[in-house]
């Protein structure tokens, strides 16, 4: 997508609310793409733009080589909305059969049954959806998104309400789909999940893409290391050697360009009587990346 802008205008108001302020993003085919950012960053508007649910004020969106307004393109997309509303009086089988029909596919009862088995709803297939738990509804939503083996899966909070064991299952299904060659577009407030499933991530804030790229590139902390010494280390002496005191007791941070510089710094610390008990690269988790990216822009809170 290029130069994507979306301004929500209200009646009798001159100035509209800008949800997207010129977004450029390209998602490679076959990748598992995660979208993260604080509340109000424009993530949902962004996802809806991909599907043509929201029409951009400016800019162009190309999905799977076409426009999302083209039903033939949408036929190749599986979508799970954030708060999927399912008809309570229907059975899961009937719901999937309807989705199959509306996707323009031939009725495929065995295929749908397999899908329900895959998401762990085989036993509840004949029950009314109204009696389902939140997690079961999410699983059914996922099954509906998987109907017709789509080329692109757009999932908005797919594990919302699902128990930890269920999350594992969902994650397994998503990884299977990625391995099959499906492009995955994931928006989840569980950063660990994004981290485990996605290989590329975009950080959104204030209607713009702040950072985008391969996860390991973004997560690479650079020259900063976290060091923990055994109790009794002399903090002042360590500070003189370039070790900055961290938040927890015995935790310090040190800048080192390479392994030689790191070992030299550690040798200096040991010479001051400090005993090393733990060493790791600082800033490797997604949360740190997000905080590091968004915090300077003044954003508060991290959520989907």
């Amino acid at each position: 997508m290029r130069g994507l802008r979306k301004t929500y205008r209200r009646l009798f108001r001159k100035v509209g609310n800008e949800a997207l302020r010129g977004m450029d993003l390209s998602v490679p085919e076959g990748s598992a793409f995660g979208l993260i950012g604080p509340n109000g960053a424009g993530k949902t508007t962004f996802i809806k733009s991909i599907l043509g649910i929201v029409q951009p004020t400016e800019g162009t969106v190309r999905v799977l080589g076409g426009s999302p307004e083209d039903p033939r393109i949408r036929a190749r997309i599986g979508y799970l909305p954030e708060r999927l509303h399912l008809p309570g009086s229907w059975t899961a089988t009937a719901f999937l059969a309807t989705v199959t029909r509306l996707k323009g596919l031939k009725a495929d009862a065995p295929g749908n049954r397999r899908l329900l088995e895959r998401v762990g709803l085989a036993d509840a297939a004949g029950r009314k959806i109204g009696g389902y738990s939140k997690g079961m509804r999410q699983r059914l939503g996922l099954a509906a998104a998987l109907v017709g083996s789509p080329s692109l899966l757009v999932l908005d909070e797919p594990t919302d309400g699902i128990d930890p064991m269920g999350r594992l299952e969902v994650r397994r299904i998503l990884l299977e789909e990625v391995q099959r060659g499906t492009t995955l577009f994931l928006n989840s407030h569980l950063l660990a999940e994004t981290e485990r499933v996605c290989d590329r991530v975009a950080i959104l804030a204030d209607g713009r893409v702040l950072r985008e790229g391969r996860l390991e590139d973004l997560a690479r902390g650079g020259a900063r290391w976290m060091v923990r010494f055994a109790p009794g280390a002399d903090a002042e002496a360590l500070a003189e050697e370039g070790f900055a005191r961290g938040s927890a007791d015995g935790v310090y941070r040190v800048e080192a360009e390479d392994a030689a510089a790191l070992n030299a710094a550690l040798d200096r610390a040991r010479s001051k009587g400090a005993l090393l008990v733990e060493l790791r690269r600082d800033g490797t988790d997604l949360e740190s990346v997000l905080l590091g990216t968004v915090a300077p822009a003044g954003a508060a809170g991290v959520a989907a």
Partner: protein
Amino acid sequence: MNPVLGIAGYVLREAMSRKFILAFVVGITLVLSVVALSLRIEVVDGALAASRLFGNELRASIRSVDVALRPVYTAAAFIVFYGGILFGIVACSDFAPSLLSPGRIEHLLALPIQRWHLLAGTFLGVMVLAVGGTLYGTTGLVLIFGVKAGYWTAGPLIAGLMACVGFAAVYAVMLTTATLVRSAALCAAAGFVVMVSGIIAGFRQQIAPMFEDGFSRSAFEAVTLILPRLSSLAQAAGNIASSTPLEVNSLGMLLMGVLVFGFGALAVGFWRFEGKDY
């Protein structure tokens, strides 16, 4: 499969699960059963000689059975017409808002169907429901009086279908309202307003002289020119049900006009829906 039919099926399945619609069907069945079991009609050479309801003789004249049943059929046509539209307004007011609710509309819009398919399918589904209910009730009525009095007429059936055309115009406006405001109450209010306006429009020649000659009268005439003339249609339905001469110039054109108004309202809905973000 045609997406419009698919959405219509979706709406119908949703409707069938609603308890009050089932209650309505049960209610019609009960009323028809009670009438069938409690009504005794004595017909002598085509004249309605005596009728008993719950064993009590009804004080009525002895006259040709079709003439005697005219008021019954006329009343039935009016009840089906106005009662049916009113029930339809209340019963179907939340179909569209519910379909457009967050979490459901996104899912539907992401499916490979055109936006207008969604509205057209909802409209079609509701109309199938209306026609089904009407045919069920009016066929029952025709059967009861046909078997009991030996007087067979398709009048009430035709009158019922005409009521469905009237409802089509009303529901099209309700559907369009749902694309503007997602509120069942406002949809019902819009339907009610169209119904009342439609009654007024049918009497426009009689009402127009009450306005002062000039702008106000011209404005009234202009507005009521395109509004669906529901009261005229109801009157024609009554005439057809009771096999009495029609008062309108051409029933076909009137019916077409009301239906085309509905399609016009639906086109406004398409226009709005195509440009709306969810």
